[in-house]
């Protein structure tokens, strides 16, 4: 296998990696705040809102992401009456499915983070005279993020790999170009390159989260 062949195969895959990264960042940037809002809704004392948030999380976590992806891409446009207004371009549809799915997981991660905060923190804040809002913003949320960091890192790595699922709705990403090359050249090697690209991306993520954990360590 020549270096030229390597470049020929790598080029379109790097192009695909842009799609992978774009989906990754859109999902992270929207689903983390959305997940936080879903968690707040879950904990809200207004019961219907809380139930709605729980049902949302239950559905999103309880069904395969691939199924959700196919529903948003192909299922919604088939709905009688409103379907024709729900025809989205594939990438937009995929982004919506990913955002909703990941928001549910992030909501659970944040909920776990809040549960892990010692009740002494609330008591100290109360005795010092902080009100509920001040306690939430200054004491609870910063600690929640710190506690949630390892789980956020884990989920982000999963997301990086899950982006390959958009292969199923024919959005050209890394795996798409790898598979195209494999079929064209009857060569196993492009799959190795694909694997290497994912490893590189997840290595960068791991490093970033390690640095964040260090920066925000409670020491």
């Amino acid at each position, binding site marked *: 296998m020549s270096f030229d062949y390597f470049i020929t195969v790598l080029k379109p895959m790097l192009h695909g990696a842009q799609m992978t990264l774009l989906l990754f960042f859109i999902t992270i940037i929207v689903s983390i705040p959305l997940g936080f809002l879903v968690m707040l809704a879950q904990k809200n004392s207004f019961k219907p809102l809380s139930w709605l948030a729980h049902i949302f999380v239950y559905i999103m976590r309880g069904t395969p992401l691939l199924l959700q992806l196919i529903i948003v891409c192909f299922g919604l446009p088939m709905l009688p009456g409103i379907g024709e207004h729900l025809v989205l371009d594939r990438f937009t549809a995929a982004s919506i499915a990913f955002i909703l799915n990941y928001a549910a997981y992030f909501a659970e991660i944040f909920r776990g983070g809040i549960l892990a905060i010692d009740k002494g*923190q609330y008591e100290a804040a109360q005795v*010092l005279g902080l009100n509920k809002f001040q306690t939430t913003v200054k004491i609870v949320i910063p600690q929640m993020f*710190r506690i949630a960091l390892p789980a956020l890192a884990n989920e982000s790595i999963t997301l990086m790999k899950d982006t390959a699922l958009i292969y199923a709705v024919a959005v050209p990403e890394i795996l798409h170009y790898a598979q195209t090359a494999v079929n064209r050249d009857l060569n196993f090697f492009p799959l190795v390159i694909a694997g290497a690209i994912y490893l590189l991306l997840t290595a960068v993520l791991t490093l970033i989260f390690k640095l964040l954990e260090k920066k925000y360590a409670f020491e």
Partner: protein
Amino acid sequence: MAIIEISTLQKSFGSNEVLKNISFEVNKNEVVAVIGASGSGKSTMLRSIVHLEKVDGGSIQIDGQNLVKDGHYPKIKTIKEITAKTGMVFQHFNLFPHLSVKENLEIAPKLVKKTTKEELDKRSRDILQKVGLSDKLHAQPGSLSGGQKQRVAIARALMMDPDILLFDEPTSALDPEVTGEVLKVMRDLAEENMTMIVVTHEMGFAREVADRVVFMDGGEIIESGRPEEFFTNPQHARTKAFLSKNLN
């Protein structure tokens, strides 16, 4: 004159009656040590004074104002005003782990009292010096020893300029070799006439520093008195039994 007046306080957790008609007073500038076995109700009594526990019946009056009267609480705003006079130090320090020592000290006066930055800066340095931790101003709580954490916690409570300081077993989570440094800070406060209620297992501290010792057992105050009388000549059989177990 009494700054805290507690009368016929009652509290149950389910069927477990933890406070049975507790009544006592604390005078201004007085140091009261509350002793008793675990489960005697002493921590619950202390926590009810800062509204960390709600009582089922009885009254608590702080500086002439009713925190609770015959089991009825006023509006939350009034409760906050009354409890603002009281600071509290916890067994497990409860420092905010994501904030530096300086930020731990300044967060409450900054948010609650809107103290200016310059004033906060001066005050946090002064108070930290008082507890002997000037060099830890910018440290994170996680890097401190237990004794240092507890001294920071005391400093944090002092930042709000309380009239009364409550201590809930302040040395129980500490290694024996560092309890001394915390007790010294508490002794200094007592000498400056801070009104203090100290729930403690430190008999030596109760004996030397307290103006009065209160012994609780089974949710009741069994006996109270000046330390020298209390420790040398306890009247009640339950006090005698407790003291013989806890004084070597």
